[in-house]
């Protein structure tokens, strides 16, 4: 029996109709495309009236297939699938044809755009006739959630979920949770103490009955899919038994080995070989840095073991592998600081009194290496003038094109702290001041009043080569003041480089494990930049905080809470539907060559050695088609994207080419 296809051409207001003659296209489809029983155009197909029209036609006209020529399936495939379902048609017998993003938005002339729309509709009709009804699979949602990253975004997500009564596993790479926020002194624009607002959240998360914290641990592998992920966590050996340690700190005090702390104190301070990153660390359990420990390196010492009353030191401790089932995953892995050495003309690493923003955070932190005193690298001289250079490695085509979002406000905060603590002159070298959140502009005005100097222009060079009187022994900032329209040289004692926020070095790798992608810059890609900012293209994997893009604390907290809310929604619903668009292997034809085995980005292919065949684990398959393309024997089929359907689609799109080719061939003879 021939199929009865309904074609629905959407105007999308003027989005499509402005460039495509929708009415003509609909008429053409009815007259020229075989098996089209109904063809209509309408102003907004996604509106309830548009949907009702499709539903009515399915019932009254006995449509067996539906083609909606409108926007991207990304946007409205679900809408139209639902409309088909409502009218009793299997939703997978509906095909969307994108004549907005693929046609009207990119075309420049009306006639060719209209012709292109016709071709795409012809392809969709040819394809939809070969589509098969599919049934989605239902999977229960495990209420336990994995949160990766114990910075402020991850902590917020953890606490939201735990307080709602759901179990959370929080994995943190460093020995303590807290993230970058633990390193800061004050937070803008309110200037409240960072530690004062952060540490209660840290200890709350640690003590919460619903939270299991694995610090000094990393996510190693993820398999499974939404609702039922299996994760493998490597808990690195602390060399200290967590069950026995009381956190008294005697071991740290007596440890004879002192090393530069390049992590928490960013090279400005020292720690011991057995250490906690900072006094308020959570958990309050030290870690032995085996690379610097005298016992591990030279086989002598064991002082910490002697000092430890409860006997918690365990030099033979091994990494522990923990395997867990979770329903959802929230990635809140944060950011890393731009390496300011990459801009040699700014002299970081060469000129002693050029500091990075993180170094300065530690300098003014009361718990930092100088107990909060702002001093030069010599550790005692207070600067009498300070330059703050914005956009170091941000808004820069050579490094990162993005704006790091927090530096303008952080620079104002630094300016305030310098003025308050030292009374030095402060110069800010900025490109644009970006203070567009609540109370931010007010903070900027406050600094203008407090007497911070603002010079608009990108700094060309920072040098210690004096050329003019008054420059001796100083760092000279060479810069074009674009408001004055002239070059300036400003000698200062101290320079703070506002280094960019960058994606973590291993963000892509972790993303791959979880099946999500990164933007060109390396930030995790959200499902929709406006309407779905914390979900990702992989169901059950959410992102929060700076791993999704540079952002400040309030925004990171908001995303943490948002991701938690999304997860709670999933848990409350209890089950998720999984797309039935999956690959399957014809076991009769499979010769077990194993080429597909390590192709699958979702680990959904298993090899059955007994029968010498590979098999797709349907619940894990996302239908991406990688294995289908890789199978040299052609025995893997992707449902909804099989050869017949794709072939028909190609033939459909070339509806007018056969005649043209016939003419061409005749001419050639």
């Amino acid at each position: 029996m021939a199929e009865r296809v309904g074609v629905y051409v959407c105007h999308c207001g003027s989005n499509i109709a402005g460039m495509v003659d929708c009415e003509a296209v609909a008429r053409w489809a009815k007259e020229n495309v075989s098996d089209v029983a109904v063809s209509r155009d309408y102003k907004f197909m996604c509106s309830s009236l548009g949907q009702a029209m499709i539903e009515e036609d399915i019932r009254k006209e006995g449509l067996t297939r539906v083609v909606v020529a409108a926007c991207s399936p990304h946007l409205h495939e679900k809408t139209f699938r639902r409309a088909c379902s409502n009218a009793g048609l299997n939703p997978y017998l509906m095909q969307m044809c994108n004549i907005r993003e693929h046609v009207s938005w990119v075309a420049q002339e009306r006639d060719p755009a209209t012709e292109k729309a016709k071709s795409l509709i012809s392809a969709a009709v040819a394809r939809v006739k070969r589509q098969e009804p599919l049934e989605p699979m239902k999977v229960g949602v495990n209420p336990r959630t994995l949160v990766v990253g114990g910075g402020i975004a991850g902590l917020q997500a953890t606490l939201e979920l735990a307080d709602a009564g759901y179990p959370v596993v929080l994995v943190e790479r460093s020995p303590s949770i807290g993230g970058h926020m633990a390193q800061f002194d004050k937070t803008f624009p309110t200037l409240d103490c960072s530690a004062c607002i952060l540490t209660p959240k840290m200890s709350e998360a640690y003590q919460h009955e619903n939270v299991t914290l694995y610090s000094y641990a990393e996510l190693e592998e993820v398999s499974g899919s939404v609702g039922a992920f299996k994760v493998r966590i490597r808990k690195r050996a602390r060399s200290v038994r967590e069950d026995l340690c009381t956190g008294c700190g005697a071991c740290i005090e007596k440890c004879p080995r002192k090393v530069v702390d390049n992590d928490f104190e960013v090279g400005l301070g020292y720690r011991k070989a057995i250490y906690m990153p900072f006094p308020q660390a959570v958990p309050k359990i030290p870690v032995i840095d085996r690379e610097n420990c005298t016992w591990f390196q030279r086989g002598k010492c064991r002082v910490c073991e002697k000092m430890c009353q409860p006997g918690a030191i365990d030099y033979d401790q091994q990494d522990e592998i923990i395997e867990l089932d979770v329903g959802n995953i929230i990635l809140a892995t944060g950011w890393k600081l731009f390496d300011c050495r990459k801009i040699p003309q700014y002299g970081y690493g060469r000129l002693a009194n050029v500091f990075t923003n993180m170094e300065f955070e530690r300098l003014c932190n009361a718990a930092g290496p100088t107990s909060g005193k702002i001093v030069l690298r010599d550790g005692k001289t207070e600067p009498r003038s300070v330059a703050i250079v914005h956009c170091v490695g941000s808004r820069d085509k050579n490094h990162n094109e993005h704006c790091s979002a927090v530096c303008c406000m952080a620079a104002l905060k630094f300016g305030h702290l310098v003025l308050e603590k030292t009374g030095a002159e402060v110069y800010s070298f900025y490109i644009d001041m970006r203070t567009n959140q609540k109370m931010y502009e007010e903070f900027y005005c406050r600094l203008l009043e407090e007497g911070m100097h603002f010079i608009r222009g990108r700094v060309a060079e920072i040098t210690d080569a004096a050329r003019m009187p008054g420059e001796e022994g100083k760092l000279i900032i060479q810069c074009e003041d674009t408001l004055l329209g002239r070059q300036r040289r400003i000698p200062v004692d101290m320079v703070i480089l506002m280094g960019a926020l960058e994606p973590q070095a291993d963000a892509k790798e972790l993303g791959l494990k979880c099946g999500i992608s990164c933007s060109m810059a390396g930030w995790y890609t959200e499902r929709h930049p406006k309407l779905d900012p914390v979900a990702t293209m992989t169901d059950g994997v959410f992102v929060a905080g700076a791993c999704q893009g540079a952002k400040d604390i309030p925004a990171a907290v908001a995303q943490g809470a948002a991701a938690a809310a999304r997860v709670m929604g999933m848990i409350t619903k209890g089950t998720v539907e999984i797309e039935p668009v999956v690959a399957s292997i014809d076991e009769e034809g499979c010769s077990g060559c194993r080429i597909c085995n390590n192709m699958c980005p979702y680990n959904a292919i298993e090899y059955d050695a007994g029968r010498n065949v590979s098999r797709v684990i349907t619940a894990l398959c996302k239908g991406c088609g990688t294995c289908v393309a890789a199978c040299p024997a052609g025995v893997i089929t992707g449902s909804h994207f099989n050869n017949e359907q794709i072939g028909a689609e190609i033939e459909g799109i070339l509806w007018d080419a056969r005649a043209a080719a016939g003419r061409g061939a005749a001419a050639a003879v």
Partner: protein
Amino acid sequence: MSKGKLAIYWAASCGGCEISILGIQEKILEVDKAFDIVLFPCGADGKVREVEKLPDKSIDLCLFNGGIRTSEQEYMARLLRAKSRVLVAFGSCAHEGCVPGLGNLHTRKEIFETNYHDSPSLDNPGGTEPHHESSVPEGTLHLPEFYDTLKTLGQTVPVDYYLPGCPPESERIWEALEAILTGQLPPPGSVIGVNTTVCDVCKRKRTEKKIKAFKRTWEVVPDEETCLLEQGLVCCGPATRAGCGALCPQVNSPCIGCYGPNGGVEDYGARLMSALASVIDSNDPEEVERIVREGLPDPVGTLYRFSLASSLLRRSSRQAEAAKA
């Protein structure tokens, strides 16, 4: 019961298929019991003019090997199609063009240049090359016309069955003949063979494949236990229809793909290329390019050795353009 009529013919091919037919050994007597041979230029007598006189569809079975490169071959293909009830494209040349099909990378002009002018072993002072028509004092002589493009038998006339292999293995020939004799045939148009690949019968140990470098056969002495592809040799086994019994891998030599694509595969070379690309163990575009360039110096000759003429590519289009101009 009266005996059926059998024709065996060769076109653009090497003659290996005939030898393989004779390789069924004493079973040839069974064939003789069932059939009268009306045409078998390589093995028996029989004249084309006799075949021309036969009524249409009076030959019960024709095994046709070789591709169609000349006008004479095309004539014979059409003649035997008309006279035969069942026409079998026998062997890789008739099935998918085989090595003669690689000539489709060049134009007729280029092939003649090489064969009649440039070849170092040639002694052709007059620069003679074949012409379709030549005038001599006695009149006009005709040679078959040499076509620009080699076509498979199936691209020339409708074919009932395909028997793959270069050449088809004698056991498979006998199985096919048995099926034909007993009338147990698959639907017309299909390949007589199994729908699985050489790996299915290959005994080598296989694991997940990650290849850092492709090697050529002279570069390594492969270990006899492990999958040859895993050792970096371009083994076409994963993409090639089973039927040979994995003869080449058994003797430590990679499969070169003579049994053609598995059932349902449109384009053998594209399939194999996509599979090989999938197992290269690198995400660095430059490294991938180096691995391919160094290890696969002749992609068409390696991936389309047997199937260029029947592939979606069919022939080199640059050359086709040049030929038109």
